């Protein structure tokens, strides 16, 4: 029997600053060109318009920054990984940084192994709230059996969903300067997909918090896979 080994390069990168406004397709195009420019041994799709085959670990909304993003791309052979980890910053758009890289022969695509993700969220409030008070409310909020979220869909009936089962944990980091910062860990990828701001929105509602600005600032921190029931970063 012929065993076909698929060789892949997995790269961890960050997407911060204005680069957070790059849409998925744009970023994919940019990464393609960066990899070509590095003259890596890329495996191209066949057909009239050969392209390197790039996959991202988990979708990230436009406007959300991230300290821990991943993509994988098929390659034909291994090479010196310093080409990636020590890449000349001028090869990258402002706000994109390659942090780490590894080779993989895993059969599963990178999307399939994602289990959880962690985020930092920041809201700005109308007035300063007592930290202890908010913390207590948060604990009660999380202790509920049910947190029902109504997802509004275009031209379709909204769906309701109990989001409790998707929440791993939520911490209040602080409530200084009329700001509240949360650290949230949620199930992601094949485990389900819950946008972390939904939790914060539900909590704002629950605790009657008044915002000075509707906008919730979100930064993804890390994407995890599940190894022996433990969350470990993708690479």
């Amino acid at each position, binding site marked *: 029997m012929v065993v076909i080994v698929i060789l892949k390069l997995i790269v961890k990168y960050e997407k911060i600053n204005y*680069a957070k*406004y790059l849409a998925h397709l744009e970023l994919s195009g940019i990464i393609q*060109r960066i990899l070509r*420019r590095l003259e890596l041994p890329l495996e191209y799709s066949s057909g*009239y*318009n050969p392209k390197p085959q790039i996959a991202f670990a988990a979708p990230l909304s*436009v406007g959300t920054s991230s300290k821990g993003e991943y993509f994988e791309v098929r390659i034909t052979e291994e090479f010196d990984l310093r080409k990636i980890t020590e890449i000349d910053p001028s*090869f990258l*758009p402002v706000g994109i940084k390659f942090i780490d890289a590894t080779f993989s022969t895993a059969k599963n695509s990178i999307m399939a192994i994602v289990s959880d993700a962690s985020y930092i969220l920041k809201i700005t409030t109308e007035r300063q709230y007592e930290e202890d008070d908010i913390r207590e409310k948060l604990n009660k909020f999380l202790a509920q059996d049910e947190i029902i979220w109504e997802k509004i869909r275009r031209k379709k009936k909204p769906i309701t969903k109990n989001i409790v089962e998707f929440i791993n944990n939520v911490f209040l980091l602080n409530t200084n300067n009329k700001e509240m910062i949360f650290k949230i860990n949620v199930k992601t990828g094949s485990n389900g997909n819950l946008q972390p701001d939904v939790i914060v929105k539900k909590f704002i509602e629950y605790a009657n918090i008044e915002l000075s600005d509707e*906008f919730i600032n979100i930064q993804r921190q890390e994407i995890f896979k599940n190894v022996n029931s433990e969350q470990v970063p993708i690479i």
Partner: protein
Amino acid sequence: MEKLDKLLRNVQNPSRYIGGEINSYNKEITEGMVRFVLAFPDIYEIGMSYLGFQILYNLKNERDDIFCERVFSPWEDMENELRKNDMELFTLESKTPLKEMDFIGFTLQYELSYTNILGMLDLSNIPFRSKDRDDDMPIILAGGPNAYNPEPIAEIIDLFVIGEGEEVNIELIELYKLMKKENTYTKKTYLREASKIEGIYVPSLYEVSYNKDKTIKEFKPSFEDVPKLIKKRIIRNFDGYYYPKKVIVPFQDVIHDRAMIEIFRGCTRGCRFCQAGMLYRPIRERSKEDILEKMDTLIKNTGFEEIALSSLSSLDHSEVKGIVTDFVDKYESKKVGLSLPSLRLDSFAVDILKDIQKVRKTGLTFAAEAGTQRLRDVINKGVTEENLTSTLSEIFENGWKRVKLYFMLGLPTETYEDIQGIADLGEKSIEMYYNVDKSLRKGKPTVTISTANFVPKPFTPFQWFGQDTVEELNEKHEFLKEKITNRNVNYNYHGSWESSLEGIIARGDRKLNEVIIKAYEKGCKFDAWREYFNYDLWLETFELLNIDPYFYNTRTRDYSEILPWDHLDCGVTKEYLIKENEKALEVKLTTDCRNYCTNCGVNKQIIGGDCYPEINS
């Protein structure tokens, strides 16, 4: 950043405004640094695909004493955000309001972008008219093909660059630096000095008077030391001349998402409808070595998967065959493709295409321009019926089944027979496809016929011609739509109303300044975009100001009339243009410059010698 976040998160395609692309510049602002912003009066995706824009950006930024940034028209959602938040339009690089620049340089590629110039000034709180801007305001210049009729925006722009901009851009900045250093700078003194630089036109230094019939009576400089005739600038020795080593790798799906290498300037064909063909004479090639070397550098510095050979007629390069084969040999394995903009229909094209498609199969667009041999001869498009048919069958034999044929409607002397000819060609193409041996065919063919409406342009033999009216053009579209019956032939065409406005502005005079400003104030913007274009609002504006729009587009002019652009000199003489127009009416061809020189004037006016010393001596 937080302030901009507020705007960016509320707009579609926020990456249009963020900058920071690979190969873009961001410099620390230092004392005495000249701040220049290249402004494109349309959205990012459009502006970023223009080669000249990228050339001028890099040329300036390679100098430490200049920081050249970019700005594009914001889409409506961003415009609303800016207004709502009481913010001004900002540059992509350093997010600085335009008012803080030393220069704002607009690229003029099409007439229907003029209201967007006003939109950008408006969002920057910069007064529209040159005379209302004081010494603290940036100098506003403009260049590009439309600068060859600067009059419709002559009261808005401070100075125009006529011809190729590379050298002259730097000269303008040098003059500015010098005057600033010597403390002699005022806007007035600067413009006066700049008017003496070859290729610079400062409209405020000229006076125009009109006859009773509204034609121009006299056009003259207000001062003795201001040139009467403004000669265009060209780069004489193009081979080996400056070309950016890197170009910005744009975000978004820009129209031409690929690197471009300009392989020559000018064109020798002499098509009579083509403004670029007249404006960019004489032909100047880069050598094969120069081109291949520059392509290597560009690919290395961008990672683009495709590179286009750019020029007015790329297959006319004397070494194009060698360039293509050498390139394909080298880059086939690296999967870098080549592309050629629209092609002439001849067998040489097919030959080259076979090489190119080794990497990537691109769609084929052929410029046939007119439906009958007679009309093709009128416009001096030296393509024969024989060329057309044999090329098409060769294409089909080689496995292509999609072609796009490009034509113009409303050409001088056109009859319905000529339009019928377009439909016939479509039909014939399909026939030819099925004449190809069955084993070589792959399914059903698609032929797309695309028509643009002919708009007479300054400095062409047809500059006196009265353009078709909207009604005439509409009738022609309807006729052609009816005649195209084959299910495998698609037909698409440009709107007649857009072409009408384009025609008005293209040959307009100074009176149009108030029309354009008024039209903008009434709400006209993004006129090149179907969803915004509002012809009725334009007509309303003309009426309000009591100016007849058709005076400019559908009126046939006399050879003796002083035209609004007569004070500019692109090298080709009026006598030559008249001769060419007469020959067109007599259906007589003019030969390609490579056969022999027909004395258009560029030799005497601009280069002071022969274009092809080796042929003509």
